[in-house]
């Protein structure tokens, strides 16, 4: 009974925790959560509604013999999400959809006599192309008159970053990587433009909220008890309604960034693109991977090639606009196998939080079966000065198979990278590339891409 491995990031809520046994993910429900869990699963009808509406990851109850400790009230086996992504890797619309999903769940819970007891962005994941709640234990029975305890958390995790991205700069999402409990409202208030004070919702949920928190930071529990005042159910519904209106009204247009128009301006003509798509497809068909990580995917053209072959693809790019466009395509086309993710490969999201173990690094969330690394090697080796051997070593840790495109020094894209800097990359050539990668891989296949001078390789880790 005690050989289950508790997940390091699952410790905050005393209602239960996640653990792994023999590679299978389980959730243990503790006796203290019994009443709420039974209400959630049974009489309230909330679990069934959330599953039917695709707002919650389903689970099945399994034998208590599988529990991680003898105290368990229930053991659940949730449907596993393919790739765990964090708020700081989402595009604007992904965060917006995660926020709307959270509010839809809160509304459904209130309708059925329960309430969300937390509103963490880390409880939302993208599963089968949709934002879903993964924390089954996030609900408490609703008690008439009680405020929503997760209101501040919702504002910090969702509203503040969305406002900053929409009204100031989309790159301010990066603040969530530093502030794991969401962007502090006083910081958001200071960074938002003055005109944001004219928006009723922003004034209320951010500016006045931040000032109220600061003003009452020293208020004692006894003083709070003296100030009893109810929050009615219509009041809570009004609050949720207003937050949803505020979030739905926010927008960001994916344009003006370096890579936003790359797909239409890149180095290949239509025939070259078709040739590249064909070769990549054939190589992937040979590998037949179940999971693919597409590094430097831009808007995900080749991610879709892998997805059409049946793979589940995480489509990484450093550019907010490219990831946004890719995600919007996921939504409009109803794609279930492609997950666009914002990631700077020269500084991937690290292991962080308590004891460096609360949020996993990119590498810890792998490995994938195959990597796609198309037209990215020059950005890593020349723009970021990473030695070819280091690129090979890193890629070999992320997946067993590799489809990689080598872009030669003569390529216009490489010339562009060298236009304003000294060329210190004398060892950047095909011969060195193959030699360094052969230390980690066998080269199974190598195919030139038309007359572009570029070459595609299929490799297998040694």
């Amino acid at each position: 009974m005690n050989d289950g491995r508790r997940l390091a990031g699952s410790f905050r809520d005393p209602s239960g925790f996640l653990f792994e046994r023999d590679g299978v993910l389980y959730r243990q429900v503790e006796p203290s959560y019994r009443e709420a869990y039974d209400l959630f699963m049974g009489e309230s009808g909330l679990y069934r509604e959330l599953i039917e509406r695709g707002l919650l990851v389903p689970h099945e109850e399994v034998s208590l013999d599988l529990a991680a400790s003898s105290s368990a009230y229930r053991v659940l086996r949730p449907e596993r999400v393919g790739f765990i992504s964090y708020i700081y890797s989402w595009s604007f619309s992904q965060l917006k959809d995660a926020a709307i999903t959270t509010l839809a769940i809160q509304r459904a819970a209130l309708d059925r006599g329960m309430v969300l007891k937390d509103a963490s962005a880390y409880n939302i994941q993208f599963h089968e192309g949709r934002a879903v709640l993964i924390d089954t234990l996030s609900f408490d029975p609703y008690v008439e008159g009680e405020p929503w305890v997760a209101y501040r958390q919702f504002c910090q995790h969702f509203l503040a970053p969305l406002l900053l991205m929409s009204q100031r700069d989309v790159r301010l999402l990066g603040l969530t990587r530093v502030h794991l409990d969401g962007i502090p409202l006083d910081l958001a208030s200071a960074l938002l433009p003055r005109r944001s004070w004219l928006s009723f919702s922003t004034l209320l949920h951010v500016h006045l909220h931040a000032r109220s928190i600061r003003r009452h930071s020293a208020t004692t529990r006894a003083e709070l008890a003296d100030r009893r005042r109810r929050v009615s159910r219509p009041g809570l519904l009004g609050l949720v309604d207003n937050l949803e209106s505020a979030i739905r009204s926010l927008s960001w247009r994916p344009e003006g960034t370096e890579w936003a128009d790359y797909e239409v301006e890149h180095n290949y003509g239509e025939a070259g693109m078709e040739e590249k798509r064909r070769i990549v497809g054939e190589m992937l068909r040979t590998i037949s991977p179940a999971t693919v990580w597409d590094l430097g995917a831009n808007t995900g053209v080749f991610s879709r090639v892998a997805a059409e072959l049946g793979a589940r693809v995480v489509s990484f790019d450093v550019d907010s606009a490219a990831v946004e466009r890719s995600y919007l395509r996921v939504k409009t086309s109803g794609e279930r196998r492609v997950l666009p993710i914002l990631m700077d490969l020269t500084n991937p999201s690290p292991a962080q939080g308590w004891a460096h173990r609360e949020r996993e690094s990119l590498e810890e969330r792998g490995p994938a079966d195959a990597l796609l690394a198309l037209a990215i090697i020059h950005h890593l080796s020349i723009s970021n000065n990473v030695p070819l051997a280091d690129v090979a070593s890193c890629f070999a840790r992320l997946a067993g198979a590799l489809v990689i495109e080598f872009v030669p020094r003569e390529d216009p894209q490489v010339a562009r990278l060298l236009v304003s800097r000294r060329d210190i990359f004398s060892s950047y050539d095909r011969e060195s590339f193959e030699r360094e990668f052969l230390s980690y891989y066998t080269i199974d296949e190598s195919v030139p891409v038309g007359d572009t001078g570029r070459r595609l390789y299929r490799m297998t880790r040694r």
Partner: protein
Amino acid sequence: MREPRIRKPLLRYLGVLLFASLVAPAALHAMALAYIDPLSGSVLLQVIAAGVLGMIFSTKSFLLRVRGAARAVWSRFSRK
């Protein structure tokens, strides 16, 4: 019935300022201890916000119901 969505008229903006200035010092409901800290100032602000938004929400819900009923009556009448 779908819950109404609330827009942001100037009146609401003025209303919350008035409401906040009148009742802000006297608001908190004793709630069950949560595992996350809601922060005192956040709870106080929420009480005020929910007071204002709740009134607007209820009014809007009522008006939408009236409109729905009126439409139903009208469509029945026009079918005849």
